[in-house]
């Protein structure tokens, strides 16, 4: 491709500026977290003596151990189940194509752009009637339903592109539906499944609205919900708040840096299909 040197230079400078703008808030958060707890430092200034102990204090104040455990429990409740039932549905709609399947699919599509705020009120009363308010179930169950439009859409898009001949051949070799699904289609779907798993993991970890409305106790919430509560409690102690925020961010950042390639492609595909 023909690119003049000047264009290249300009592009690189622009890119570096944008990266700085993206990174600076993280850096500012980090250096502020090192200041003496209770002080009100400037946005970006290295402290005379870095107070690494703030991280320990924040870890204790935020009850990080419990928070992590709670988020993990919610993830375990949501992600595998959502993957399983959406794969079953996507398989049925994309491969078996039953009569009426199209109508079912369109019904799912209608929920694709639903803002969660739209249904949060009935969800509250529903969870109250089930006696599940303030338990992790109040986050897990609605999320399963709320993820279905996207997850079914995603898996159907995958299954519809798999040639029928594969199913046909397996059937003729004597595979029943169960074997066809588990032995042939699930292994073939691994790339689509793992991308979906990443998206669902991230959305659950970062879910805030449901946590704030349906669960009062921060130790029963998702990470994002807990962070909200932490801000409410320690919002005036800036260094401690910064340290706590960083701690709560760390697991996501670690997972992202390990799986970054998959993450980026999953999120890009995810928004393209959505």
């Amino acid at each position: 491709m023909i690119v003049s040197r000047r264009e290249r230079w300009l592009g690189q400078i622009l890119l570096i500026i944008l990266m700085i703008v993206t990174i600076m808030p993280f850096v500012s958060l980090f250096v502020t977290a090192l200041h003496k707890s209770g002080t009100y430092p400037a946005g970006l200034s290295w402290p005379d003596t870095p107070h690494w102990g703030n991280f320990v204090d924040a870890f204790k104040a935020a009850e990080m151990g419990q928070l992590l455990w709670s988020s993990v429990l919610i993830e375990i409740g949501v992600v595998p189940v959502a993957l399983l039932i959406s794969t079953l549905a996507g398989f049925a709609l994309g491969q078996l194509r039953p009569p009426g399947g199209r109508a079912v699919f369109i019904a799912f599509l209608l929920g694709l752009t639903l803002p969660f705020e739209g249904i949060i009120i009935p969800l509250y009363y529903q969870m109250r009637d089930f006696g599940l308010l303030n338990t992790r179930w109040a986050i897990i169950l609605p999320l399963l339903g709320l993820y279905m439009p996207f997850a079914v859409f995603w898996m159907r898009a995958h299954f519809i592109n798999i040639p029928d001949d594969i199913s046909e051949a397996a059937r003729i070799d004597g595979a029943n539906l169960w074997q066809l699904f588990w032995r042939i289609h699930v292994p073939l779907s691994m790339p689509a499944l793992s991308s979906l798993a990443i998206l669902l993991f991230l959305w659950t970890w970062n879910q805030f609205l449901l946590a704030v409305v349906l669960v009062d106790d921060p130790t029963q919430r998702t990470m994002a919900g807990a962070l909200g509560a932490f801000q409410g409690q320690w919002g005036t102690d800036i260094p401690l708040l910064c340290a706590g925020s960083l701690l709560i961010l760390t697991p996501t950042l670690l997972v992202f840096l390990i799986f970054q390639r998959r993450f980026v492609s999953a999120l890009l595909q995810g928004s393209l299909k959505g």
Partner: protein
Amino acid sequence: MAQRLTGLVSGRREGTSPVLGSPESRRRALRARRLRRGGLALTLVAPAALTYFLFVVRPIAQTVQYSFYDWNGVTPSTWVGLANYVALFHDPELSGSIVNAFELIIFFSFVPVILGLFTANTIRGFATSRLAVVARTVLFLPQIIPLVAAGIMWSWQMSTNGLVNQVFRLIGLDGIARAWLGDFDTALPAVGVIGAWVLFGLCMLLLLAGMTKIDPGLYEAARIDGAGPLREFVSITLPSLRQEVVVCVTVTVIAALASFDIVYISTQGGPGNSTLVPGLEIYYLAFFQREVGQASALAVALMALVLAVVLPLQWLNREGDS
């Protein structure tokens, strides 16, 4: 692989067909199998459909139902017809929240998409260089952290002592330094900047991915014909990117209209009601002021607004495909 299987299948199919007997009975057998398979298939859809119905469809219907009542969530409700919807237009707090959401679109949607187009176009030429690969990771960071964290970070950046004001003082603009999120005039744009920061990376990378799919030969030809960078962008890049642009606009507009996390953390809708958005207002009305009916009417309006914006965009996309 697929082709080999096809050959195999058709060969066997011919071999087995005579066994099935007359065309009539064969057709009947096929139909029976289709029906049985159809029933089985619908069973497989059932778990997904059931959770979707219980936790999405039914709540939507209930929201609509609540919106016609005056209800405090405890005592019996009274039917008020369309009064809650009329209030959406007359009560400045309610209509203001919707106006604010539309103003946020400028920052959440237009800024990331336009800036993303510009950036992606500038770096298109070296999209595979090491710097660009690093940038891919870095610019994506805001997309994976919780919006709550973005809100906390930026509340701190934009406070009186924060980084933003530090930068302004450094370049001699002491006069405009202020508590950005606490000022009636700047709070909403400041919230918008947080959204733009979060959404820019996603838009830029989506657009860049779209640009790398464009045939480089087109650009070569344009350059040979003497087209400048601007002409190139307007005549080649933009038309090829219709799908990606529509996707970016859809995602970001929904993010603006349905914003909650960032506003809740950074301003709680204040100062005054200057940053109040529908999501937050629904939350306050339903769970603090106990005006469940009014909150539901706003929720219905929000869902309708999102659809009203998204459906034409999708239609535009469909048109482009055919």
